[in-house]
């Protein structure tokens, strides 16, 4: 049978469809360029989503015949069909694929698109296949998905040994439980409500996909612990029914009300620009020798990030990269009431501080065999903080602090069990992590200056089903971390 040269296919495609909209990309790229620190990281991933160029021919190889190397074939997407999505709206899946009807994509671009869909929190897996379109050379893209359940649960047991100078390492542990449910609202909205055992947090979030038909994503979230407050025995009862009690290693409790909002604007391929804002109003109760210190704290933070994400899975990644660079600004206002002080002293302290920071992290996953994968993550941040405080003596103290931090994390994961694609989804992994970090602070207040370094070693099991993710982790922690 005669073969069809891909040139023929492309000749049937209107010129406007042949390449992504370069003008729009240029404008978006201009925004990204303003993040100077991103440039270096961007260079390392630029090739993963190259524009469609120098591609588009398939040669008919004949033995003994000289030929030029074959180029990756392009697939003109005429329509997108979604299968097995009982709850997930088609619009969300198409939006998150970032594929445009009428444009041609290489297999590498389609693979990135299927990974973007798999990374949605309400999906477990996705596959692409093609069908013939209505005109020769065009294709119907079929997206077949595996969904999570609407109810989701999680359980995390964390046990850790921490060095205790002069004594043997101390062991502490905690069990965190999570339960929630997701509701799809309309064609592009997802509402989720959940509660977790840690501090009795209840949170409600809404995410709107494909904002303004630009594949942008807007998410808002409110969370609160809704606790009644502490009593003198150090017990705190929260709305979720959680009794929070001071222990030797737990010297504080808090309840809070927080609001978060985030806007993610896709740039091209796996790149996106993200803007986040959050406000947390909290009351923190510290154990003190004579009663408790109660702090009212109000924190605002804003962040602008450039992100690149090409992971093949959000929970059990085996390949891909995540790069994030964030410029952040935060403001803190805090007023503390200290009980049990002599009457000659005031009973309040006031703190306020503003900080600006630039932080970056880069993480890469790769597989060394069918079951084994490794990861490496480097991160660093620089920042400046200006703070003013009034102590119980009525003295005003101001300080300027520069802070720096860096970290290196090495990971290893061994897939112990994964159900066949035709069976109900479940997967178990053994994960090991070595985390090292270094911090340094220097400034006008010598009490706040200094540097430290430390490490932690963690081993654990993580299990994922259609219901959620469950993990068991054991760590050794250097106390300086």
């Amino acid at each position: 049978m005669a073969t069809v040269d891909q040139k023929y296919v492309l000749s049937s495609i209107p010129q406007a469809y042949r390449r992504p909209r370069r003008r729009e990309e240029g404008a978006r790229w201009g925004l990204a360029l303003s993040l100077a620190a991103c440039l270096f990281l961007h260079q390392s991933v630029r090739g993963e989503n190259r524009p469609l160029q120098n591609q588009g021919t398939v040669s008919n190889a004949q033995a003994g015949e000289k030929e030029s190397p074959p180029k990756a074939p392009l697939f003109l997407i005429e329509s997108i069909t979604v299968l097995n999505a009982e709850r997930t709206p088609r619009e969300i899946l198409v939006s998150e694929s970032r594929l445009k009807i009428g444009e041609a994509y290489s297999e590498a671009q389609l693979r990135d698109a299927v990974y973007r869909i798999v990374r949605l929190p309400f999906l477990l897996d996705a596959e692409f296949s093609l069908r013939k379109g209505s005109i020769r050379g065009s294709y119907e893209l079929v997206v077949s998905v595996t969904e999570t359940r609407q109810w989701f649960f999680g359980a995390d047991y964390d046990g850790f040994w921490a060095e205790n100078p002069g004594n043997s390492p101390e062991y502490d542990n905690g069990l965190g439980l999570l339960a929630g449910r997701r509701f799809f609202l309309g064609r592009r909205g997802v509402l989720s409500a959940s509660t977790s055992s840690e501090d009795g947090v209840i949170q409600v979030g809404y995410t709107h996909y494909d904002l303004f038909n630009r594949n942008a994503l807007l998410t808002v979230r409110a969370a609160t612990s809704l606790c009644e407050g502490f009593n003198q025995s150090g017990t705190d009862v929260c709305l979720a029914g959680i009794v929070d009690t001071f222990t030797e290693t737990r010297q504080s409790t808090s309840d809070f009300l927080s609001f978060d909002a985030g806007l993610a604007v896709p740039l091209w391929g796996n790149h996106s620009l993200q803007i986040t804002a959050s406000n947390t109003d909290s009351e923190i109760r510290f154990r003190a020798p004579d009663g408790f210190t109660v702090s009212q704290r109000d924190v605002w933070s804003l962040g602008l990030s450039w992100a690149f994400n090409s992971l093949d899975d959000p929970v059990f990644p085996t390949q891909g990269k995540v790069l994030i660079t964030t410029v952040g600004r935060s403001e803190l206002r805090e007023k503390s009431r200290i009980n049990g002080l002599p009457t000659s002293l005031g009973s309040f302290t006031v703190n306020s501080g503003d900080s600006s920071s630039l932080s970056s992290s880069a993480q890469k996953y790769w597989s060394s065999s069918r079951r084994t994968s490794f990861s490496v993550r480097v991160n660093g941040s620089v920042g400046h903080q200006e703070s003013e405080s009034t102590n119980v003596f009525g003295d005003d103290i101001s300080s300027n602090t520069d802070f720096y931090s860096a970290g290196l994390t090495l990971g290893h994961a061994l897939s112990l069990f994964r159900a066949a694609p035709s069976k109900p989804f479940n997967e178990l992994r053994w994960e090991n992590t070595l985390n090292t970090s270094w911090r340094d602070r220097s400034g006008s207040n010598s009490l706040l200056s200094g540097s430290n370094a430390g490490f932690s070693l963690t081993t654990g099991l993580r299990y994922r089903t259609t219901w959620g993710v469950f993990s068991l982790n054991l760590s050794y922690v250097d106390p300086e971390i």
Partner: protein
Amino acid sequence: MMNGKGSIPAIVLTGLLAWISPPLAGDESQAPEAGNPNLEIVEGDLLVLSGMPMILNHEEVSRHLTTGLTTTFAFRFETAAKVGGKARGGARVEIRYELWDEVFHTVTLGMDGRPVRHQLTTLEELHTWWRELRVPLLDLRARAPASNANGSIEIDIVPFSKAERDDTQRWLYDSALRAGSTAQSPSLEDRADRSPTTRNSLEQVFGVLIATSLRSRAVTSFRWQAKVPAGATTP
């Protein structure tokens, strides 16, 4: 607070679970009904896999073959270290069904670094081609396992073409393809036309890298054991 010693069993349990865990269910299959493939030596310096078991009929494989997108068959060959030292090799086969032309495009890239492409018009032709496929797994001049050593052969079935995974691999792939395209006799059968001494050593490096360095999450895998035939000796 718990005593640290009390949790040592938890760590032991974690390690034990990992150690005794079964192979990935659904991710690894023994050879289906078609039996074992064969290993043979070509030209005295190339270990070649032939007599391919008919895994194309396997449910997970056949489902991917007709998606219109490339399905990659990543071959790995390894002998045990205790017998004549560990020898590793590999190869890659890519199959894509072109829906409009109704043909299967195949590319075989073995350890000889030479891509061999075929175009097959029916599923029956594809099956015949697969049965007759000869895949160069190991260059014996670089590393020769002992004769009669047991070798394991694994094939991972991976969606999408691995050839364009990233820039580096794309460059390697193109380089190898260029090397292949400039040769007058690209097929394994025509190797006799070329002297081993004139073979481009870089081409060998490319072949090794491409065939063995691409790892990805497989939808399913197959594994066999085969004996290395006599005559595989280090020059």
